[in-house]
């Protein structure tokens, strides 16, 4: 980042390559719409580049990057929210893509027997999980993603989200409890293999012991 600060374009390209995938995934989770994930990631990179001169060497770059990403996602959600209010006055909302809760409801309908029972697999399972995550609050989603995919400690998440570690702890607890509550019916209905990751869990427990 220090090279980027000194207007080294190639360094910036390297930086983008390193963080682009993680940032897009985060934007898929915390952004207002999936189709905006790449745009928001790009917007985040642009903001990083424009603000490169203000970067302080002591700060961890990922913390700085995800802080900006959180702001970009929040602004986008706010902006879309305003547009949505305007468009709702003029015309009924087009249901092009189902929201997280809608997807979960549809999946639940299927599982209730009104739809043929089958094991949810692959992309569908991912959709269920994504829908569950989407049902979380924005801050819970953000904290969850930073903890799960960026392996950030409570302290680092607190720095990124400008919160206390205690608040982060509570936020993550609520996020995981919510996630459990949202996904548990599918697991209990056998739509989602509850053993997924069980082996990993057991392995982790063994390591801790």
């Amino acid at each position, binding site marked *: 980042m220090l090279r980027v600060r000194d207007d080294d374009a190639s360094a910036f390209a390297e930086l983008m*390559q390193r963080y682009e995938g*993680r940032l897009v*995934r985060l934007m898929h*989770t915390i952004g207002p719409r999936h189709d905006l994930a790449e745009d928001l990631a790009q917007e985040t990179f642009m903001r990083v580049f424009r603000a490169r001169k203000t970067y302080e060497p002591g700060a961890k770059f990922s913390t700085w990057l995800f802080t900006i990403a959180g702001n970009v996602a929040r602004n986008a959600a706010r902006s879309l929210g305003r547009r949505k209010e305007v468009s709702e006055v003029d015309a009924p909302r087009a249901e092009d893509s189902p929201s997280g809760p809608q997807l979960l409801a549809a999946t639940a309908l299927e599982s209730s027997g009104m739809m043929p029972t089958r094991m949810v697999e692959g992309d569908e*399972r991912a959709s269920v999980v*994504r829908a569950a995550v989407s049902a979380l609050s924005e801050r819970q989603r953000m904290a969850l993603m930073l903890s799960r995919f960026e392996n950030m*400690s409570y302290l680092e998440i607190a720095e990124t989200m400008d919160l206390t570690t205690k608040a982060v702890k509570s936020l993550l*607890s609520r996020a995981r409890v919510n996630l459990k509550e949202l*996904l548990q019916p599918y697991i209990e209905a056998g739509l989602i293999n509850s053993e997924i990751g069980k082996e990993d869990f057991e392995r982790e427990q063994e390591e801790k012991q």
Partner: protein
Amino acid sequence: MNASTISDNAPLDPDDELLVAYLDGELQRQEQSDLENRLLTNEKLRLRLQQLQTGWDLLEDLPGSSPSMKLVESTLELVVADILKDQPTVKKSRMQWQLPVGLFLLCLVIGLAVYFTETTLRSNAYQKELKDLAIAGNLNAYNYGGDLKLMRELSANKDWAQMISASKEIGDISVDNAVDQLTEAPAAEREIALKAMTLEQMDQLNSRWDQFNRLNQSAQSRIRTTVASIAAQPDSQLLLETMQVYAIWRQTLPTELRDQIESNDPSKRRAAIKQAIDRTYFNISRRSSMQLDDETTDWINFSLGVILQERLDNGDAVTKAFYDDLRSLTNVFRTAEDAKQATIATMVIGGSRSKSPTITEQSKTENSQSVTPGNPKRRLPSSQFFSRLERPASLSREELDTIKLPLPENALEMLGVVSMGNPLTELVTLRVWCEEALRRKFMQRFEDNLSLEERYNKLPSERRNRIDLLSPEDFLREMSKPSRSRR
């Protein structure tokens, strides 16, 4: 379903928080141990932990995002566009005001630098000139008074100091106070001292300034060194005053005497100084005699007549014989008064000759004139005649005291100033005054009642040309001489 989720501010089961922290590895060792003990015994808790972990694990199903070079490239394009968009604007806007402002500032800085440099150089040059001007004002002093040993010797010599004091009183030596003020003033005040000068003083200073500037660099440098050396002396002020006076005094002395004074031989130097002081005293006396008023000279002539008469009455054989011899020369001294005057002149001049060779030399001409007044057709007695005669004694100390007694107050005051209380000097001065009194008496006898200008105009052109070259004093003396042509 959405409604069943726990909001950010809703209360949370402490066990859930504990379990999540345990899963995230954020518990302290003791907390972790306690929880694990509980998990061993509490199946419900263990189930909750498992459910929380399952949800966590399911997040793995969230689609990842493979690196997209397209995104990187398009972002880079945007970055470049961003840079290009900003750069010209920045450059243009900067160029719009930076170039003229920069040029203006550059010109301003250069202008100020030139101005201050020039001002400083001028100021330095001006200060240097003021400093040099003070040196030039005392140029002769620094030129001729560089021998500090001699200067200290002179300033410690009482006779010399008295002589200088007398010279100053009589006006033979005058140190220009304006130059003194210029010299003594600090550099910053020299300009004021300069402005306070009269035109005459300025002219004189200007002349010395030209003289200083005509000196070559090494000579100027030598003088500056002398100035610095004198300034460093503890008695610098006294030294400078002595140097100033010495520079003027030495000009009145013959070259040979100057050389002896400035020699390195102490005895020769002391003797020369003494001789020069005597010589100067005589000159002071001469000068003072020129300033005598008619009342004083009348009194002196009257006293001289009384003295002669006393000598004749008291039976001074030599004087009487001399007077009788002159009286016998009826073709030269027609009246008894003429013979008396000639005898008096011999008493005065003869006495002077014995005292001072210089007086003698100075009086030779007048002597001859004093004995040859009257008709040019008269035949003068031969030198053999005078050499045969025994001359009357010169004026004695008592006789000179007799001359001094009736003198007017102003004359006595001048005598005191000139002699500075020195009896010998007083006697010499009185003799010189007697000569002057006699000269004026003879002059009156042959006065043609013409003004100096009329006399000058009547002179033949060759003589006028010669007189034109004389100093004002000599000019006056020459024009005052009773010449045969005027008679």
